[in-house]
């Protein structure tokens, strides 16, 4: 129950950025991406598959990632691996800088004293 109340609603478009950023480490399949985001945020962001898969397919549709069925390193199963494209890399950069500006702007409003000191 506690987890559920803490589950943060992601801002629109933020999930796309997180997925792209995750794929910067190399190709990964859906499950890995979800788990990675969950683990990195100390379970703060519970990945909902209901939005993860639509997001992945949306990115693919836009041409920012490509997908391919590949055998997993353990060798006995196939997964659909997503890979960042050049276009996706550019998009990541653009979104990152946009997000940074946004975060700074929000911070300036929220904690004005810290800014002055």
């Amino acid at each position, binding site marked *: 129950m506690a987890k559920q109340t803490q589950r943060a609603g992601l801002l629109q478009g933020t999930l796309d950025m997180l997925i792209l950023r995750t794929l910067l480490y190399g190709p990964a*399949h*859906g499950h890995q991406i979800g788990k990675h985001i969950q683990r990195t945020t100390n379970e703060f962001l519970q990945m909902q*598959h*209901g939005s993860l*898969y639509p997001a992945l*397919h949306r990115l693919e*549709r836009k041409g920012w990632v490509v997908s391919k069925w590949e055998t997993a390193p353990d060798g006995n*199963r196939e997964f*659909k691996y997503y890979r960042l494209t050049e276009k996706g890399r550019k998009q990541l950069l653009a979104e990152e800088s946009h997000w940074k500006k946004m975060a700074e702007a929000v911070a300036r409003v929220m904690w004005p004293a810290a800014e002055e000191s």
Partner: protein
Amino acid sequence: MNWWQSKKRDEDLERELRSDLELEEEEQREGGVSADEAPHAALRAFGNPTLVREQTLAVWSWNSLESLARDLRFSLRTLWRSPGFTVIAVVVMALGIGANVALFTVVRGVLLKPLPFHDPDRLVMLYEAGLHEDGTPSFNPVSGGMYAEWKEQNRSYSSLALAKEIRVGLSGSGGQLPEKLNSALISWDLLRTLGVQPALGRDFAPSDDNPAANGTVLLSWGLWKRRFGGDPGILNTAIDLDAMRYTVIGVMPQWFDFPDPSTQLWTPVYHDKPEETMTSYSNHLFRVVGRLKPGVSASQGAADMKLISRRIHNAHLDNPFVFRSANSRPLLDHIVGDFKKPLYVLLEATSCLLLIACLNVANLLVARAEARRNELAIRTALGGGWLRLMRERMIECLVLSAGGGAVGLLLAFAVLAWLTHTRHDLSRVESIHIDGAVDAFTVGVIVMCALFSGLIGAFSTSDKRILSALHEGSRSVAGASSRAMLRKVLLTVEVGLTVILLIGAGLLLKSYERLRSADMGCITQNVITMHLGIPDARYSTPASRANFYDTLLQRVRALRGVDAAGFASVVPGQGQATDWAVTVLEHPPLPPGNGMSVLGRWADSKYFGAMGIPIVEGRTFDASKRLGAANEVVISESFRKRYFPGEDPLDKHLRVRGRDAVIVGIVGDTRYEIGEAPEPVQYLPLAAGVETVGTLVIRSSHDPEQFALPVQRIVSEMDPDLPVSDILTMNQLLGKSTLDQSFNTTLLVAFATLSLILAVVGLFGVMSYVAAQRTNEIGIRIALGAKREHVMRKMLLDGMWPAVVGLLVGLAASLEAGRLMRDLLYEIKPLDPEVFAAVAATLLAAAVFACIVPAWRASRLDPMQALRAE
């Protein structure tokens, strides 16, 4: 996106989700979850795979038709699962749409399509007007003399042409019987004025259209095919019309039916009519068609004619029958004038019917939404978007009304086939068929119906209510009653519309009854009439004519079973036909420019007895006075009232038709047309040998129709070339002239009955639903000691109020609707209290009938069972 592509994507996605889910399951196991629990735990962590799949696929197809197709399949499936509902909804829609499409097709064909002539907007019909200056525009036929003046003096029309409908006898030839045909006398330039060419052969030339020319005739396509086998060799051969030779010069196109749908022959008017008729200013016989010159407006043209008419009138002040003015109206208005009002009234009735059908379907949909509340609630809970559900319901409505539209179109086809078959008299009946515009209209109606019934249904359930449905469970008493409210409001509207239709139908029905029971002033039972005419050419002397009719009547009266027989040029119910100028010799001369014109008929001395027209005073003609000696006249009661007030007309003298005649008798009034007040009539003796054409009447106490054959045999023995036509009983003859009324009445009564049934079914449905919803409550009431009669009365009253409110609203609206129909009514007011009372009673009875069964069932409820049921 192609379906195979989407299918591949679907499979791909399913595989992806499955593999990821398996991995999750594995991880759960590794995390210490038992093997049994792992799949469930994985699913919990993963979420609903089906929903994920749906949403992910939606990324690929959010604007595509694919989801529409899916919804369509879905709604077809749901409709298939509830065939009862589907069939009822489709049938109701089909009735509404079918009636509308059929009537729209008729209205379009008859009233809206331009006439099939060249540049038809420039064509007008011209009339003489203003003999009696009472202000109302009159549309009188035009005299030959006035036409000639108009043609010569006007500056507004590029051409003016004449037409007159007549009947001619076509002689038997090549083994075929002689027959009587509807024909038209036309001036040589009529077809040119309309911009029409014969399909075969040539048009009339000016040289055909004068008394000295040889007779020429144009045939209708139908006559050519039927009588002459469609043989092109008929051109330039001769046929005999009324014992005169005519050379066939052409055949008209199949669609051409001017001036009347039944016209089969066209002959030149100046050739056929004597010169004195064509130059008379007081013999008003003809229709005049004009084509306006470019740039001249219709009102300018009419003003031009008015001026000329006034000038001619002033130049002939001694002749009291020269009209002083003129009128014009578009040719289309002239042709369809009689049908315009009834058609629009019927169209309004069908729109009412359609609205009722939509309301009924909306009502069904609301009921269905209630029944599906749980399903919808669950789907909403699982993430089905509100819009998505809305769209699904709209598509369902669209499927329903499209189905209804398709069936309705078939229905319309059938109705139109029947209509064109039964209503030959309807002008332009040949231009009625379903075409692109009608198809577009059908599609429009379908979409409108779907939107209308769908939106009403959709607004009855908001998503909040859907969610609360699950909380409410089945113990819903308060919620249900508010939804029943919406259905009751729909019902109220439906009942109101039904009342309007019922009242319209009631008014027409009563008016029709009045019409049929109108006293014609003569016997209408057991009388048969036959039309007969002897050609002038062969019966040129008065003696030969008088002898023919003498012999004929003698032989007919000698037939076994004939109680009485007579002959008159025009019998009651055949219209005004002819009127004759008349002066009373004993009266001081009327001031110049004034004259009496009274309906005139030729009759034999026993005609009054045969028709049961009472002789009020004096006697009938003296049968021994024949030819020049036949100098007697009989007048009708209203003739006496109008022209001999306070004096005895017997033995006074009338100058009429060039002879001085003494009034020997006064007979009862008759109506020249059912539904018209009796007019004064004067009768001259047939024995004078002037008239050649008329109607033979035979009265017999049993089955007068048996005389059709013997009389035809007698006629053919006397003259083998003489056709007998229009063999009708008096009732059929009158029925023909009330065909229009009976048609309108039948249709409107059918519509009203249909809508009453729909309203009753709707009422019954809602009441049953309300009763079912309140089973629990009623059970408690009865358990607590409520009397069953009280329960029943309460349920009944509950069901009656939409009916009563609807009735009141409908009655109020009918005041307006009745006013609209005033022109169609005969001798009754639009606010006929009897009709209103009858409709109110019928409706209330129907409403009680619809409510009593559910109410009774509710009052019979076993409280224990009712409480246990929940």
